[in-house]
């Protein structure tokens, strides 16, 4: 792995996850001659213009054709090229779900799918452009690894970890311009191993994606009120880190799962599925986008509307403790 891009983190934070992704892919390309990036008429939107200029022989555009994006990637992967297929999370994995299943999952091919602008950050563009169900779709496909990184450096580490892991991958990107740097220094990152961001024995916030910042904010507020909150960065949604869940089940009184996804089939669903095997586990409540299409509004409006800001998480925890 190249030197950690610590000097870029503030820039990536300010610019948002697309820039962090695109520059991470450039750094990866400089080290891995067999990797390529493919997109679906999204070059400027995905901040991939520089990648295209620097690596014209390793950059492909299939046009507005997400199914073909996945099948083309499958064919390349089948023959030893390492494709990163980049598209809006609102369009992958839902539109090419069947290609992800029949080509990437079934053949267990070494191709990586990146869905950017996951969740509801496209606010004013409306529900066609929200990715609220992408985790549920990808989770249902065997062989897929799913990671939703929480901050700029974790995006970089996820992309490099995906490149080194043999098998299909879905990387779900959240966090717009100004999303916080939560890992300012290098840190230990392993696929399938959650990070205990903060210890605590009352409530446990189990979060995925850039909402980790809200969960940490909630833990801070609770601490000032004398309530101890554990914060778990569950970057890998599949395979789920059951070791940390076992610890939470044993030590915490309440679980709050935090995700920018519907209440069905996402992180909350995954935790509930695992938890259902055991007796005497803590109550779980889900902070999520619920099971509904959203009202139109800014990202900030939609987070509040769905109870996903730090003060909302505090209220949810206090109500249920």
């Amino acid at each position, binding site marked *: 792995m190249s030197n950690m891009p610590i000097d870029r983190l503030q820039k990536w934070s300010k610019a948002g996850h697309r820039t962090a992704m695109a520059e991470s892919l450039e750094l990866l390309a400089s080290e891995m001659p067999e990797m390529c990036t493919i997109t679906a008429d999204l070059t400027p939107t995905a901040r991939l213009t520089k990648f295209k200029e620097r690596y014209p022989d390793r950059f*492909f555009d299939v046009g507005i*054709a997400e199914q073909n994006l996945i099948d083309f*990637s499958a*064919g390349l992967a089948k*023959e*030893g090229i390492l494709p990163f297929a980049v598209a809006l999370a609102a369009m992958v994995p839902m539109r090419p779900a069947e*290609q992800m299943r*029949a080509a990437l999952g*079934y*053949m267990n091919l070494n191709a990586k799918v990146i869905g950017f602008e996951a969740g509801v950050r496209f606010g004013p563009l409306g529900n066609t452009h929200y990715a609220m169900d992408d985790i549920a779709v990808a989770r249902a496909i065997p062989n897929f690894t799913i990671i939703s990184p929480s901050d700029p450096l974790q995006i970089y580490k996820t992309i490099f970890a995906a490149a080194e892991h043999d098998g299909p991958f879905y990387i779900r990107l959240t966090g717009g311009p100004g999303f916080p740097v939560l890992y300012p220094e290098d840190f230990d990152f392993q696929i399938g191993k959650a990070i205990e961001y903060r210890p605590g024995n009352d409530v446990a916030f189990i979060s995925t994606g850039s909402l980790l910042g809200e969960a940490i904010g909630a833990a801070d507020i609770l601490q000032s009120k004398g309530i101890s909150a554990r914060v778990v960065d569950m970057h890998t949604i599949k395979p789920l880190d059951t070791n940390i869940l076992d610890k939470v089940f044993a030590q915490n009184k309440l679980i709050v799962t935090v995700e920018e996804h519907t209440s069905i089939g996402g992180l909350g669903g995954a935790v509930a599925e695992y938890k259902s095997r055991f007796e005497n586990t803590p109550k779980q409540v889900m902070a999520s986008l619920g099971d509904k299409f959203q009202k139109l509004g800014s990202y900030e409006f939609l987070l509040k509307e769905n109870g996903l800001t730090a003060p909302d998480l505090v209220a949810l925890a206090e109500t249920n403790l």
Partner: protein
Amino acid sequence: MVNQKLVEIIQDKAALMRRDVIEMGYAAGGHGAHFGPALSSIEIVASLFFEIMHHDSGNPRMAERDRFVLSKGHACLAYYAALVETGYITKEQMYTFKGDNSFLSGHPSLNIKYGLEVSTGSLGNGLAIACGMAKAAKIKKENHKVYCVVGDGECNAGIIWEAAMNGAKNKLDNLVAIIDRNGVQLAGKTSEIMDFDIEAAWKAFGWEVFVLTKGNDASSMLEALEKMKNSNSGKPHMIIADTVKGKGISFMEDSLSWHARPMEQEQYEQAVSDLENAFTGGN
């Protein structure tokens, strides 16, 4: 002109493959099998495996092998029959078709050691994947070709046309696709289900198109494949081969009812009898 001796060899291999198709399909019992779409494509697959493609059943992972993708995956019996007759699969394994825990499912499943290159069955996707494989060969500066058999009904699928655009854009002249135009799909004639000018469509999408009116004639098929294999037109190649659904079995030919179904003993005996007359005696 194609060497007559070679034509006779392909004809005899085609006859053996048809017999394997019947054996496997009959062995599947009540599960039934896609007889019609396999039998129409036999000359395509036989010509590829016994003459056109560079491959070695003793070395199935050989990097320079030509790649075969059966996009119309439901015609897997033709593919399996070729793998049996070229030594990738034993006769004993052949009879496990559709059986519990067999690797020979009703649609091909990736298994390189048995010559099964790509999992297909979800129609349209095989061609799109084949484009990726052909592109990979170009990127890696490898000279092998990718051959892909497509159904005419399969051309209803949108992904086929996404692949068509992509193949032309990437100038994949190392890709040879063959449409097995047998004119019949699951629920009826292709002309009734979704009628369009398939030849004009492929030309409009930028492919080098060759229409072969005698798609079950080994000599014509060999000639067409040889021509497309050696064409460096900068375009992907498409042979549209007119074939007969259920070719070679009297009661299946051009039949709407033999797309996929179980075979009774009487029908099996009739099919075997039909095939006994198909050998040239030259091999």
